[in-house]
């Protein structure tokens, strides 16, 4: 039996007096595309931060592919194949779009730094291959024409897309995406949805925070609902749409 991709077991995260995530448990099967939804301030980003030990859980445990993440530093978690993006796009300033994409591949460069300094043929071939891959991904998301622009010159939505490309360059086994569609218009959102399903179909497990319900209901096979730090419901999109507590959480928050 293969272990689930991600197991979140009774995870809580406290900020002073505020319990931002409150005893949340769920599992995500390998190869699935799960959506994490909930009103503003529900604790979605905090949950991501707890999973990746940016703000480690105050209680509970997270397992990735059966392995506990407790106490692992951010780069160790990335090494296991769990890659995240951030809610406010965090492309690297001072680097071009292409360089930002390539930065994502840092774990997959085999050439020794000395070989790169000396520009040995092996190192250059590897660099060309990575560059080709980055350009193909940038092309897929419509950013290839801007490969040599400063990444921070891109509009917010495009920066978030670039962050997805950068995460993909890391060959993740699982992706955690925090509101990747924020700042995109309808057709760009549709492109992103197509890209996400395509990534999922290559076997990468995805968990995505998203506010756009039609996007979520269209692509996710599992929806996890959070409200005020607590898990409200977990289920298939149709189950969630019919769930009274979910509707209340949203109406309560927006009404």
């Amino acid at each position: 039996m293969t272990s689930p991709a991600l197991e979140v077991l009774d995870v809580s995260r406290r900020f002073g007096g505020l319990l931002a995530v409150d005893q949340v448990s769920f599992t995500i099967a390998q190869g699935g595309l799960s959506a994490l939804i909930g009103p503003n301030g529900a604790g979605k980003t905090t949950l991501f931060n707890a999973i990746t030990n940016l703000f480690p859980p105050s209680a509970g445990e997270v397992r990735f592919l059966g392995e506990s993440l407790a106490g692992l530093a951010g780069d160790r978690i990335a090494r296991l194949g769990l890659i995240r993006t951030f809610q406010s796009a965090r492309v690297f300033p001072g680097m071009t779009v292409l360089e930002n994409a390539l930065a994502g591949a840092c774990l997959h460069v085999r050439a020794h730094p000395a070989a790169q300094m000396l520009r040995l043929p092996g190192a250059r071939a590897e660099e060309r291959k990575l560059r080709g891959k980055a350009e193909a991904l940038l092309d897929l998301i419509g950013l290839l024409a801007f490969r040599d622009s400063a990444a921070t010159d891109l509009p917010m939505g495009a920066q978030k897309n670039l962050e997805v490309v950068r995460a993909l360059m890391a060959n993740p086994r699982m992706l955690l995406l925090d509101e990747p569609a924020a700042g995109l218009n309808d057709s760009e959102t549709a492109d992103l949805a197509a890209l996400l399903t395509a990534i999922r179909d290559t076997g990468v497990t995805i968990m995505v925070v998203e506010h756009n319900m039609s996007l979520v209901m269209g692509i996710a096979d599992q929806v996890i609902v959070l409200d005020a730090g607590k898990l409200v419901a977990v289920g298939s999109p149709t189950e969630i749409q019919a769930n009274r507590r979910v509707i209340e959480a949203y109406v309560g928050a927006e009404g």
Partner: protein
Amino acid sequence: MSGFLQIVIGGLSQGGVFAAVALGFSLVYRVTGVVNLSQGAFCVLGAMAMYYFQVVFGWPTPIAAFAAIVSVVAFGLLVGVSTFVPAVSTLPVSSTLVLTAGLLTFLEGVALIVWGNQPYALPPFSGEAPVVFGALRIPTQGLWLAGGTVAMIAALWRLVYRTSLGRALQACAENATAARLMGIDTKRMMLISFGLAAAIGATSGLLVAPITSLQFDSGSFFTTSGFIAVAIGGMGSFAGSVIGGLTLGVAEQLAAYYVSSLFANTLALLLLLAMLLWRPNGLFSSGPARRVDVRSEAPVHRAVIRLPDGRMIGLALALVIGLGVMPLLPLPNGVLPSLAISMILFIAVLGLDVLMGWAGQVSLGQAGFMAIGGYTAAILATTYDWSPLAGVAAGVALALVCALLLSLVTGKLRGHYLALATLTFGLLVDSLTVGLIDLTGGPSGLVGIPSFGVAGFDFDTPASMYWLALALAAIFVVLLEGGMRSKFGRDLQAVRTDQLAAAALGVNVGRVKTTALCISSALASLSGSLYAFNFHFLSPEMVATPRSFEMIAMLVLGGEGTLVGGLFGALALTLLPTLVQGLALYKTMAEGALLVGTFLLLPEGLFGRFVLAIARWGKAGSMAQGKLPT
């Protein structure tokens, strides 16, 4: 026992000044979030103004003191409004540190022009006769200093906690955005805090000048001591500043008496490094509890400085050939040796660029590694008859060991604390080069260093030294350029701007920083050895902390993150004083002014600007693709 008390009293009076400087630091830090390294220079300016009003013009002491403080504050406000305040609102923390270091250099330069380079002492306010308590003799000026410090603390405390201006200052400290929303003019508050800090500096300066004679560059001493004091006490804490200052003063006096005056500094600095390792926020870390945020600094916008691939080779060849033929041209007297010096310094600046420009780690102690390389190679070659090459290798190895040890302390530190740790390291090396007289020759230096030579060939002329340094620099530039254009360079840049995002992609942030520190220390060490072989002489001040600041100025002037840029900075700051003889006096001031001016007006530096222009020119043909998506 009374001997011990006498020492403690001396330490307390010395510590009073440190405490006052630390108070100035804390005040500005609380309001602006920036450590203003120029703080110590205001002490010297205060003493200098006092000297003119009291000794030269013969005004009565109280009037002279008042006039001195007012004029220093006025000057401080001018400097603050034109440089500090605009910089604080636009630059990231690490750059503001370098900028205030530039201000410190600038103000020292001003003091040098006005005051010359001899030490001055002021007459004590109430005569030379000390007050006698039994066996204790307390100089009256010490009482003035103690009283003045207490009065300043009381006034500051009242101002901050009991007035509406104080509440506004505090509001800025807690949350600048919220303060702005409440209608507080935060820029004005920054300026006011800067002016108040200048007043504190001037007052303590004119109080201490009768006890310790001051000269134009005493400002660095006050700044570093005050910086150490706040680090002990906790940045931003008023009580901590005072306790930190007094502790430091007493510890230094005791160490001077019971151990050796040569190592008084060394012990204090070791204490500080241990402190940074054990409790990086100081004993009384205070200040408002800020919201822990995912991002440690506001995002910065940086220009992307890249030469188009096709033009690289041509430009590089032109540059190397152009530089290579220089010694063959009929150059004015003294230019060739200056060229050799610039090229040797450039090797160290190149390393500093990897560390500061690419990895974003401020280092105020780079000269420390030059000293390690210089002294190791020189001592081995003179006293132990090692071949110069073996000496250089030993210097680099020792520098690498020190870099690894230092990275144990600096690994977890960022921003101010990182700068402080590197500064401490540099000062520690300074104090050792002065103190280990048997080994280094002490303050008067090491003489009789042979020329550099390999395989029977001696590099004993400026031209040969220049060519050697040029060849080495060219090799390093080519290698580093290769590294920077691949994974290693991308990792460095990722760490520079966003460590958390870098780690989330799998970058081992600690290892990247350590590697950058090792590269920079190895190059600095090599540069230091060549420097010693070039002059056949090495003294502590040739490779002391002001040299660290000078190299930062060279780097910033040339352009951070450009590798080659540092060469133009090194050439400018070394050649100009040689070419224009009358300029030597103005060198320090010009260095500071150039550093500050570049930061504010030309953030990408001379070479960076040149590259941007070329890149834009190259792109002009293919502008069709240029529109960004919306």
